[in-house]
Each structure stands twice: as C-alpha cells, then as structure tokens.
C-alpha cells in the first residue's frame, strides 16, 4: 500500500441471492487519488459489489471499512455522510423535482450547511456541468445524457471523498459521453477519487489508472490497465462469456 | 409587459370579488314568506354507512303523508313541503343536516332519523333553535331522558322494546339464553336493557358482540351449539343486513329455530320487505317485534296507509314507515291546532296531542319519571310476533306478547309442535 490514505476497503465480501453467489469473498480497496475502472461481463457481480461498498446492500459475509470505520449495520445515508457518493446503473434522479432541487438535497444533508451556501454551491456545480440553463426544469424532462451529468452533480454536492459511478456511459450520446469523460477527468485532477464501472472498454481504458476485472462473482485481476489487458484469466473470462 | 400584467390582475381580481359577493349571498339566510309552503325537515340515513334500507322506507312514508295532507288542502291553507336530508348515519352530517334545515330552509319542525347517535347530534341543533323535532325510529333512552322540550319520540324506546323481550323470555320459561348483538347503538342498548331483566328473573345468558359488517357466523353458531348446558333460546339484536346470513346460518346449522332452541331477532330486519326472500324456511318460528298496531287492532288510518303505501311503492311498509307517516300527520295536526308555525306554540300543541293515527291513540307524557318518559309516546305499540308460516306477512303472524293483545293461547310455538 502506498503512502496515500486508504478510503474504502471491502474485506472478503460475500453476497448470495437464493442459490447464486453474486460475490464470493471479494477483496477490494481504493486509496485516495485513485481512478479505478471496474469491468467484467454481465452478471459478474460488479453492481452487487458497488451496492455493498456504498451501503445499499448488506453483505452476507465480510465487511466494509470506510476511512478506517467499520460500517457493519449502517444505513446507506451514513456512507454518504462519510464521503461515499454513487450513481446508479439506471439513472435515479428525483424526477419531479427541479434540476436545482436535485442538487440541493445532498447539499443540505451535510451538517452545518446553510441554505444560502448550498444554493450557491449548486449553481456553481450546474455551471461546471453546463446545465445552468435547465435549472428550473423537472429532472425527468432532461435527456439521458443530461440526467447522467445531473446525477454526477448530485454526487459532487456531497463533497465526497470517493465517487462510485455505475455504468455512467451506458446509453449516452457520444458527444455527451466525451463531455462526461472530460468532467470526470477534471474532477479527478482536482483530487477526487473515482471507481467507474462500465462495459465501454474504450472509455474505461481512457480514464482509469487501475483496472479491476470481475467474473462469476470473483475478482480475477487487479492492476495497471496495460498489465490487465494481457492477463490470461481476463481473456479467458471474456472469451467464455 | 409589466403594465399588461397588472391589467390582467385587475380583471381577475374583479372577477374574484364578484364571485365572492355572489357566493356570499348564499350564506346569509332570508326570512320566510307567509305564502310559501310550510316546510318540514326530514333527516335519516339514505346512503352507507348508515342504515339506508330503513331510511328509504321512512322517507317514502313521509312523502306519502305529505302528498295526502296536500291533497286535502294542506295545513292553515298552505301546502306542506318535506325537505329530505341524507345523514349517512354520521353525527356530523346530522348536525349539518339539521342546521341546514333550520337556518337555510327555515323548516318549522323536523322528523325522521334511524340512528340514535346521529339523532343526539341533530336534537342539539333543534334544541338551540327551539324547533320541535320528532324522533321516528331511534330507541336510545338518552334521547328523551335529556329532557329537551323540543324533542318528542313516537318510537317506543329500548326500555319498552327490549323490556318486553326480557319479560317474555322469562314468562315463556327459557332458562339459558345465547344473546348475540350487533355492535351498534341499537344492539348495545338492547343488551343494556334486556340483561338486567333476565338477571331479575334468574335466566342465565351468555353475551356475544359482532361487528356490524360480519356475515359469517358459522364458527360462532357452532360454538353456541357446543355449549353445555345447551341454550334453549337464541336472542339476536340485529338491525342491519348481517341479520339475514345470521338467521340463515343458525337455521341451516340446526341451532335455532329447532325443537331445542327458539330464536328471536330485535331491530327490524325480520319485518322488512325482503325478509322472506333472504331467509326462506329459516324464517318460520322466528320471533320479532312489531312496533305498530297488531292487525286485529288496525284502524282505518292504518289500513288506508298500508294500502296506499303498497300501491305507491309496490312493497309493504315497515313499522318504521308507519312511525314516520304518523309523525308527519302529528305535526300537521299540531300546526293546525297551534294555528301557527312558531316553535313554542308547536311544542305546546304537540304536548296536548290526542289523536288516533296509524299506530293508535297518540299522547306524549310530560312527566319525568322515569327520566326517559318525558315527551315519549308511552303507549307506543310494541308486540312480539312469531311467524308460523313461511312467507307470512308480519301483520298476519300471531301475536304472542304482551298477553292482553295476544291472539294465540301459547306463549311460544315450539318447532315441530
């Protein structure tokens, strides 16, 4: 482990659905400043892993440690309070609330936040995402790509230490996808840590500094993208699927 | 832009104010005109959750009475108009209905109601306004016991009805009674009056309450059947639709009426128009009360009413209907004698009532002993009948109690005898 502080660690995480083992003793940790790509074929357990790491799914075995705190039995909103933000595979916005309100919600959950400062912060976030002109629109009326951007903005409003992005590029127009990648890169350069899950190998490879590959509920590779690409197990997993 | 916006607002405001003024004229009552019809208010349940089945019959009878009065030229040279108000069996709707009748419609008197709890709310309004109100089919003792001068009751009350059952059960020699009552005002007050009388006569009993919406009694009746020593009488106090499945199940399960166990229901359904259609064979030998004159004591008014009602509505009137019919005629009589529609004068005239109508000779007690006697029609006819044939009309069934008007020798006809 490098000098950088460990932000989140999953220790031998296990999750079963009925008879299916969705995650089988998965070890996963992210240090500050990292930009991790998480890939794997459909049903390999990526989303399950993310759901456990962000508190949305209680693990059947193992535990999640966020910044040194053991999180067993804690509700999802406490993960958020600890600086763990996430987006969802299918965008989950507050559809009949305005774009601005969507950003106010996470901002106002932070202790000590004032309405005035949060509105200010939300407006600058909208500026950053280039969504300012849509401020008063209901979130459900945005296009798919704009919704992904807004969801990213909602994460930013938590001023998180780490962001989990679950398939941020799925179904996004190429033009907006480039914009999304740019935003992520800018944020990363500003010091944010990311875990990005996607099928879109090209984008992932463009983005990530470290690549984690999952297959059949297990982690089969973890390392710099260039190394992982050559890994036999990975090739086999993709060929087999 | 701004100016345009303002002008827009102006026209809207004007419309708003105009609307408000228009609406507000609704809210302030106007005095009645002497040439107008005399308005009489009617309150009662016409829709669920109230006992709308009885309410409709009462309403029909009141309509019939008004038609007849008007056909004879009305009262004081003015026609009678009945204003009907549905109270849905809810006290707050009763208050609203009574308020509306009194302060909007300017009725001179009110009749009707089937639910004691609702009548208690209505009579407060009438009491405050000094408008006479005649309780038609509400049995709670509290109604007349309150001693409001405006409140009169043509119905017998629970002391007069349930009391008769208690005395009869003891006299007929029943020793062990299963008492099933519906958890509403009628059932509860029947229980409260009847049980002390059974106690007094040393009759043993077990009491079971039921939710008024219940229709499945099999388990309960089996439980009755398994009781040791066996019950020799099944007394039910049911006024709503649950009575029919209850009697059906009691019959088909072989509990009552049988040679071992008799059955009675107090509350009305056993004399309603669709009784036989619903219970069939199970209705034979059922004992129930008739809160009207026995057929052998029918006078011309009763006969004319029954005939007219059947002709107009194509089904038999219930006792509640006759009560409501009489209540209307009583009011017309009182208005005629008072030569006024003033509340005080009407109350005074009602107190001096002495007239023979569909349920016999009406007078209202002015004494307070017992407390429920005040303004109660003390001689309100109550007879217990027992059907001895299937599809028998209530008025053709033999009267078994009280003994002075009974037209059969036996106190109780045991099935199979």
């Amino acid at each position, binding site marked *: 482990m490098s000098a950088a502080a460990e932000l989140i660690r999953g220790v031998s995480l296990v999750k079963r659905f009925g008879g299916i083992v969705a995650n089988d003793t998965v070890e996963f940790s992210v240090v500050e400043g990292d930009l991790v790509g998480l890939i794997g074929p459909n049903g390999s357990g990526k989303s399950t892993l993310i759901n456990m790491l962000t508190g949305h799914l209680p693990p059947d075995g193992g535990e999640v440690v966020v910044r040194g705190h053991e999180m067993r039995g804690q509700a999802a909103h406490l993960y958020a309070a600890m600086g763990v933000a996430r987006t969802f595979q299918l965008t989950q916005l507050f559809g009949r609330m305005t774009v601005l309100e969507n950003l106010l919600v996470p901002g*106002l959950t932070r202790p000590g936040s*004032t*309405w005035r400062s949060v509105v200010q912060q939300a407006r600058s976030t909208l500026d950053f995402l280039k969504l300012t002109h849509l401020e008063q629109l209901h979130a459900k009326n945005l296009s798919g790509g704009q919704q992904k951007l807004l969801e990213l903005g909602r994460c930013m409003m938590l001023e998180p230490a780490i962001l989990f992005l679950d398939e941020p590029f799925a179904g996004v127009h190429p033009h907006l996808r480039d914009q999304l990648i740019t935003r992520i890169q800018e944020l990363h350069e500003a010091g944010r840590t990311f875990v990005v899950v996607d099928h879109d190998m090209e984008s992932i490879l463009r983005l990530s500094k470290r690549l984690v590959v999952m297959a059949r509920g297990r982690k089969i590779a973890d390392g710099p993208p260039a190394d992982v690409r050559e890994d036999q197990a990975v090739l086999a997993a993709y060929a087999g699927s | 832009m701004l100016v345009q916006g303002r002008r827009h607002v102006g026209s809207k405001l004007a419309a708003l104010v105009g609307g408000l003024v228009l609406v507000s004229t609704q809210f302030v009552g106007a005095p009645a005109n002497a040439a107008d019809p005399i308005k009489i208010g009617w309150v009662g349940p016409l829709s669920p959750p109230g006992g709308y089945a009885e309410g409709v019959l009462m309403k029909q009878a009141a309509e019939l009475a008004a038609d007849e009065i008007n056909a004879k030229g009305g009262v004081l040279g003015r026609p009678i108009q009945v204003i009907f108000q549905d109270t849905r069996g809810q006290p707050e709707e009763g208050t609203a209905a009574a308020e509306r009748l009194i302060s909007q419609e300017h009725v001179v008197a009110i009749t009707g109601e089937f639910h004691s709890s609702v009548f208690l709310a209505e009579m407060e309004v009438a009491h405050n306004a000094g408008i006479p109100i005649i309780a038609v089919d509400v049995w709670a003792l509290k109604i007349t016991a309150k001693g409001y001068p405006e409140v009169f009751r043509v119905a017998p009350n629970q002391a007069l009805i349930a009391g008769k059952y208690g005395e009869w059960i003891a006299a007929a020699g029943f020793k062990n009674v299963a008492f099933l009552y519906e958890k*509403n005002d009628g059932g509860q007050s029947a229980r409260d009056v009847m049980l002390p009388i059974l106690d007094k006569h040393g009759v043993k009993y077990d009491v079971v309450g039921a939710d008024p919406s219940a229709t499945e009694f099999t388990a309960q009746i089996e439980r009755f059947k398994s009781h040791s020593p066996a019950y020799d009488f099944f007394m039910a106090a049911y006024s709503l639709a649950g009575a029919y499945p209850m009697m059906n199940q009691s019959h088909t399960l072989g509990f009552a009426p049988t040679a071992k166990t008799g059955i009675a229901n107090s509350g009305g359904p056993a004399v309603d128009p669709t009784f036989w259609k619903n219970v069939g064979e199970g209705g034979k030998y059922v004992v129930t009360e008739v809160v009207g004159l026995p057929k052998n004591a029918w006078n011309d008014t009763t006969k004319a009413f029954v005939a007219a009602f059947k002709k107009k509505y194509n089904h038999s009137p219930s006792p509640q209907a006759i009560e409501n019919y009489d209540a209307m005629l009583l009011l017309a009589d009182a208005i005629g004698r008072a030569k006024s529609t003033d509340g005080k004068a009407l109350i005074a005239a009602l107190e001096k009532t002495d007239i023979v109508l569909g349920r016999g000779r009406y007078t209202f007690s002015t004494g307070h002993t017992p407390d429920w006697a005040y303004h109660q029609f003390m001689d309100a006819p109550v007879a217990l009948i027992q059907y001895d044939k299937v599809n028998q009309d209530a008025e053709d069934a033999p009267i078994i109690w009280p003994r002075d008007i009974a037209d059969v020798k036996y106190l109780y006809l045991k099935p199979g005898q």
Partner: protein
Amino acid sequence: MRGLHIYILLAVAALALVFADRLSSYWMHVAIIAMFYGILASSWSLLAGYAGLFSLGHMAFASIGGYTSALLVQWYGIPIPVGMVAGVALCCVLGGLIGWVCLRMTGPYLAIFTLGFSEIVRIIFATEDDITAGMAGLHVERLFSTTSRLPYFYVAFALLVVSLLLMGVIVRSRWGLFLRAIREDEQAASASGVAVARFRILAFAIASGFAALAGSFYGHYIGILTPSIGGLDFMAVLVVMTVIGGMERLPTAVGGAFVVEFLLEVLRGYGQWRLPLFGIILLLTMRFARNGLLTPLWLRFVQLGEPRAVAATALRDVPQKDPAQ
C-alpha cells in the same frame, strides 16, 4: 407587486374573521367542518403527497386523538385543551411507531398495512363499548358552553391557520425537500445522504399529530364521537377531497377540502347521488388532471402581480429560504 397572493389571502382571512358572525349558523357549521377537513387533508397531503406515503390510516389517528382527548377530559376532568394536546402527543408517538414498523413497505403494501391498522382501531373502539360507548356514540364535553357556533369558528380557523403555518414551514424547509426526495426515489435519497428512515417516521408522526388535532377538535365540537370516524368511509371522503384539490401542495389540498365539503352541502338535496358524483370526479381528476383540479388555479394565483416573464419561470415553487435556520 411580488407576493400579491399573500396579501389577497390575508385580506380574505381578515374578511372571513370580521364577517364570520354574519354567516348563518348552517354555513358556519359547514365552514367549521370544512376547516376540520382542511387540517386532515393538508396533513394527509404532507404524508401522501410530499413524502409519497399513501396511508389509509389517517382517519384512524383522528379517531384515536378524538377518543383520547374525550376520555381524558371525562375521566380526570382536565381542561379540554390539555386533553387535545395529550391526544396529539399520543398520536405523534403512535404515528411514529406505525411509521417505524412499515419502513420497508411502499405503495400498495403500505396502503394495505395502514388499512388493516385503521380497521383494527375502529373495531377496538366499537367493541370496547364499556369504555368508548361504541357505536352508540361517546358523549364528549363541548369546548364551549355557548350554543353559538362563532367561538368554534374562530378556534377552527386558528387551528387551521396554525397547522398550515407549521406544515408550511416544514415543507418549505430542507425537511420538505428531503420528504419529496424520498417520495421520488428512496434509494437515491439515501445515496444523497438523506436519513430515509428518520424522515419517514417523522412524516408519519407529524401528520398523525395533526390528524389527532383535527379529530379531537371534532369531538369537542360535535359533542359525540362514534368509531366510524376512523372508518373507511371517512377515509374515502378525505382521499376524494385531497386528490381532487391536488395532493402535492398544502394549499390545494385544503382548497380541495373546502370545495368538496361546500359542494357536498350544496348537493345535499340530491342525497344518495352526491357520493357517486364525487367518485366520478375523483376518477376523472386522477385520469386527466392528476395534479388536482386546483393546482393550475393555485399556480396562476401565486403568480398574480408578477410580470409574466418572471411568472413563467416561477411555475415551480423553489424554496427561497430555510426557516429551520
């Protein structure tokens, strides 16, 4: 002129207070009952409209509040307002408890659960008649000994205004924002740091408290309480009122209560036809104007006096400040 609608509302309220004694006793009663429903509709809208918790147990809390206050006053002779406060407090606790128990339920499950709860409450009140007098009706001490309805009018008015102000503060604060976020997407709300469980419980507790307030006032006004106040029929009328008005805003919910109660009275002469008529209106509202019939009117009203350009963007009521600060 910004905020013209507030001045208009204040003026109407002032007029209502000043000219209240000109109302006939009947319309005063209608107004009082409308305000009673207004408190219920707005608090139910807080629960069902804002937080998305479609509870059918709202009237059960009104009945619990009513009976609690009535019985405490009867047994211990405490002043009526103290009894009402006790009823409200009890229902806040009970409401919170129900909210806690049904944390994992959504949509129809929650509706069925609360339906079960309200029926059980009704059955208990009807069955334990040695305490509650059952369906015969519990005699409740009235708030005032006078026969005039005017003092009740003022009390109902004050209760409605205070309730609306309190609830208004809540829905315009961050709490209101969180409740709406929970309604839209619980998972996303929790991912945004909203303590979903806490706010769901809170919504139930607060709404139940207001229901109890309305219920206890009702008892001490009418003077008689029956278990049917907590029954499905009352609940259905409440749903009709709130949905027709617009369940996602407090003023439209209250407006719905006023309009429906007023129409129910105007149409009283039609007896049995009244309720099916409102059934149809409810269906049509849901089908074709889901936000409620009064919502567009209310949005127009709020814009009164604002230049149109501004008005167009102000269609959404964006919270301006946080009163909780």
